[in-house]
């Protein structure tokens, strides 16, 4: 899949914003960790809402016809993209009531804004889930069509949010071992889930060029795609990065996204200045940005089977097995095999 830059920015930035809000609501409303000052609560809230809004603005970047973007709320009943849009917008009034409560009443907010805060946090999780399901529900892309996809989106959002939460807390001198510990646990959980995802997609199977062309009992090779230049389909689905590029980026995902931030928090726990949590936050955001690029780059749409890919996992360049047309074989007995019924895929299934 062609990785659209606007979609990468949107999912990473908004994901971190929702994660940050979930952490804020959990720490504040459930009374976990040290009491937060008025200013710190507002800083977390403004940062999370700012990131979410910035991401949503970026998300319209890949639309070819932006004036109809408002219509994306219309098909809540069947479309995960529509559901994401609805939940993302529904989040705002509840987060707003909670934020207003904090603004007017400080940390000791009344039951109504607190309830709104809980609902907003739940909606944040649901929005992250909907974002993951946009990709997870597509049967055409086997690498995405797994429950791991929405699980990854939720966990990566919470992990990046947790690093930001710990970093912002340092500004107010309120960062505790709990902040660093929660961030580390979230990062490790996200890394394990992402590791399972990479393991899973390395051995995924599905349609082949045989089921795509209906010839299930013979080797099928593309002779000609019928067009001289690229098409919408090759632009959108023909993205084929080199294997070593993918391996290098994957290394970056784990090093920058998970290992470096965990090491930063580990050093904070063993006495380093808390301010370096910002390093962890920036590093995890860059690493997850690379993860999002890889998420698209490794996804192989089944329409590639019509453009010469043999399976729904390999690249367009990989050849078919079996003899090729140029093999100098002129054994006349081969022709008689037709009569014996050994036909090359005469009838599919």
């Amino acid at each position, binding site marked *: 899949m062609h990785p659209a830059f606007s979609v990468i920015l949107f999912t990473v930035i908004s994901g971190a914003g929702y994660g940050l809000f979930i952490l804020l609501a959990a720490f504040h409303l459930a009374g976990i960790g040290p009491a937060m000052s008025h200013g710190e609560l507002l800083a977390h809230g403004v940062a999370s809402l700012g990131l979410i809004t910035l991401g949503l603005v970026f998300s319209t970047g890949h639309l070819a*016809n932006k004036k109809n973007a408002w219509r994306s709320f219309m098909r809540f009943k*069947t479309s995960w993209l529509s559901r994401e849009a609805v939940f993302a917008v529904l989040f705002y009034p509840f987060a707003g009531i909670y934020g207003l409560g904090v603004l007017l009443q400080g940390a000791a907010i009344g039951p109504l804004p607190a309830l709104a805060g809980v609902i907003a946090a739940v909606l944040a999780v649901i929005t992250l889930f909907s974002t993951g399901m946009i990709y997870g529900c597509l049967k055409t892309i086997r690498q995405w069509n797994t429950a791991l996809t929405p699980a990854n989106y939720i966990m990566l959002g919470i992990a990046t949010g947790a690093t930001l939460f710990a970093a912002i807390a340092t500004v107010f001198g309120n960062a505790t071992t709990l902040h660093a510990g929660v961030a580390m646990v979230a990062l490790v959980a996200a890394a394990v889930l992402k590791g399972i995802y990479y393991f899973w997609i390395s051995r995924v199977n599905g349609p082949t060029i045989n089921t795509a062309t209906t010839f299930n009992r013979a*080797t099928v090779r593309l002779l000609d795609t019928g067009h001289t230049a690229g098409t919408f389909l090759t632009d959108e689905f023909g993205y084929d990065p080199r294997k070593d590029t993918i391996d290098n980026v994957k290394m970056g995902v784990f090093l920058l996204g998970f290992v470096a931030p965990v090491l930063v928090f580990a050093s904070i726990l063993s006495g380093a200045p808390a301010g370096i949590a910002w390093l962890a936050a920036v590093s995890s955001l860059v690493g997850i940005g690379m993860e999002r690029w890889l998420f698209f780059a490794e996804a192989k749409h089944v329409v590639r089977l019509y453009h010469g890919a043999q399976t729904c996992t390999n690249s367009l360049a990989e050849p078919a097995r079996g003899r090729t047309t140029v093999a100098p074989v002129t054994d006349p007995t081969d022709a008689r*095999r037709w009569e014996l019924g050994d036909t090359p895929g005469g009838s599919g299934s």
Partner: protein
Amino acid sequence: MRLGLVIDMDTCVGCHACAVACKQWNTSGTTGALTDYRPYGEDPSGVWFNRVRHYEVGDYPNNKTVNIPMSCMHCQHADCVNVCPTGASYKRPEDGIVLVDQDKCMGCNYCAWACPYGARELDREDGVMKKCTLCVDRIYDEALPPEERQPACVITCPAHARFFGDFDDDNSEVSRLVRERGGVKQMPELGYKPVNTYLPPRITRPIPIDDVRANRVVSSVKDWVNKMVAR
């Protein structure tokens, strides 16, 4: 009614006439222009509703060229319609034709992602998704003589490899062909239930290749000498 196409992979010669006729009819049809990008440039591209691809099936010498024209399959389980967030994509209940309302489309490409058959193409000029309409602006046109109320691709096919009709009617030509020739569907395992059906190549007599001269040392040397002498 369940309207769709039957495409005969036995008789299709891969001439692309259906694709060109489709482009000609639909570029001035209800779905507006099928924009061409750089039409006179080095790498001309553009929007097509119908594309013909060519494959080699089987291993030499038991191999065969098969041409596969593909357009919208008007699936019974059309995920492109389900995933559309705006409601621009819809499937007509009366005849099963899948269409895009271009006034509602926001050009997010999501329906193209959901389509396994590559039937949808974004028109970058207009910013909206476009696709095969099964010539809905033609098949119901009572101003046309009845025999012309068919999709442009079906009428134009010189090999008579394309058929249009109602798959719900057991006595229609398309139903009969599917029954008699063992019609097959592409990627049935995805569960989209495509309506368009393909007829596999017939099993025919083998084409003798006994008379093809074997590639022996003597003949190779002869060929080489002849080539050298001619020049």
